[in-house]
């Protein structure tokens, strides 16, 4: 599903001493099935933006259009919106509340009015997608699980609602490297296999470089760049000036270039960088 915003602006606590404009004049258009990365320093307006995508916040001015429907249209009930746009907040394990994993994941689909058998199917499917063993875990208490498993249960809880757009705010933060990769891989599978559009908010440039089709760069509430990772990471100086950096692999290439190696520093993923350095070394060696 495509998402579009037109000069979206949001101001908190209008008319008080706490008045604060979190995002101003944000206009963009995404395509269906796209994997979008959202990066920006803390307080750059990322969280405010994503809360507009399922109408948790309403714009102070401007509009949000999801698949042709203007979200400010009053006729659109909240349930119809959350059915289409799922949001996984930061540290989603804090929203778990049920006695069993099964019940917790079934909370969303039940709210949306799916029947018992449909819900059962959706819970199985969602657990399978985030690599949780249905038979083994369905009757466990979610509070007895490990941190990584809790996170998966929480993501499955949103996934079970069958959203066509999935927004994830730092889904991998605070997890160990294995857990991190597992979660990001699952998200990529959702995107590639069932064609869910993904919005991934992240502070980790390597993840963004590896997984995203296009990247939004936010600074002080404004959308600075919205391009492919290749083009975004070409602006190394700009990123640095707003408190971000380029992926590790690209950093290595840039440093090598600075030292006089004839590498092409436009690559940004780890595999590409390795290949490029190997090529450079082979070339330098007189055979």
């Amino acid at each position: 599903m495509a998402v579009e915003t037109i000069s979206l602006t949001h101001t908190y606590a209008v008319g008080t001493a706490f008045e604060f404009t979190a995002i101003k004049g944000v206009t963009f258009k995404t395509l269906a099935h796209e994997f979008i990365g959202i990066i920006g320093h803390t307080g750059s307006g990322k969280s405010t933006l994503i809360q507009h995508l399922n109408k948790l916040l309403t714009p102070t001015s401007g509009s949000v259009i999801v698949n042709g429907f203007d979200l400010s249209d009053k006729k659109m009930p909240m349930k119809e919106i959350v059915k289409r746009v799922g949001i996984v907040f930061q540290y989603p394990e804090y929203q778990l509340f049920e006695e069993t994993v099964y019940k917790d994941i079934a909370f969303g689909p039940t709210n949306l009015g799916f029947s018992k058998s449909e819900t059962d199917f959706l819970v199985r499917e969602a657990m399978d997608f985030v690599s949780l063993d249905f038979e083994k875990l369905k009757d466990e208490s979610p509070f007895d699980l490990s941190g990584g498993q809790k996170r998966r249960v929480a993501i499955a809880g949103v996934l079970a609602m069958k959203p066509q757009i999935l927004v994830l705010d730092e889904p991998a933060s605070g997890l160990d490297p294995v857990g991190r990769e597992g979660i990001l891989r699952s998200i990529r599978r959702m995107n590639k296999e069932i064609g869910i559009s993904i919005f991934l908010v992240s502070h980790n440039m390597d993840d963004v470089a590896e997984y995203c089709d296009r990247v939004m760069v936010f600074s002080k509430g404004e959308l600075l760049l919205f391009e492919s990772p290749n083009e975004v990471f070409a602006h190394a100086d700009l990123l640095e000036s707003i408190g971000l950096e380029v992926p590790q692999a690209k950093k290595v290439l840039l440093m090598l270039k600075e030292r006089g190696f004839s590498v092409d520093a436009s690559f940004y993923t780890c595999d590409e960088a390795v290949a490029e350095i190997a090529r450079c070394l082979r070339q330098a060696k007189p055979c």
Partner: protein
Amino acid sequence: MNDITVGQYYPVDSPMHRLDPRTKLKGVFLYVMGLFFVNNLYGYGIAFILLCVCVACSKVPISYVLRSLKPILMVIVFTSIINLVWTQGNVVWQMGFIKITDSGISLAANMAARLVLIITGSSLLTLTTTTVALTDGIEMLLRKVPLLSKVSHEIGMMMSIALSFIPTLTEELDRIVKAQKSRGADFESGNIAARAKAMIPILVPLFVSAIQRASELAMAMESRCYTGGTNRTRMKELKYRPADHLSMTCLVAALAACYFTKALV
């Protein structure tokens, strides 16, 4: 959640903000006590002017001060009606079984005026005093109370921790509500039973995280060898300044004037 004005600090710099928290605490205490001795229009007039001067000195917008009245507006209206209808006295107006008496009117007006002044006055205290200053002030004042002087530090500490948790928990609550709304939870429709049940997905995670936070804080305090009690010194000592003595004198004088208006009627 933005309607909670009591306990919400309004960050500007003003003479009122700069007063010693003890002065403000004692002032509010005296003001509230004083209001119970007032029983005529002149007295309320002086009390009202006093409050207006304080609000003007505080630089807090009037709309903000008045917002604290919103939650208890119903209480004021309700008690006024009860007082108006149920008080015995000389009947001034009658319709069917409803009788309105002169003493009913005066009692209702008295109560309403008192409530409005008390609530506005005490919310002015929290609007102009940070929670840290407030608990410091309470702790210092409790030291002078005979039975509580030994545990005054512990009481102050407990209060400041409890108060500092309020914004954190409010934020947490907001996050949980948003997360559950995103999962299709509906808090706005259905009868009372359905709505109460709809609170479970919010309250369970909120309690879990509150307990977790409390135990983490206890651990952090213990690992830094926290001990309360007598030998603790503080970085910012509270000191009365001339402004404190001046405002206290003015307050006492105004309250005395309120009291002696009795002689006028």
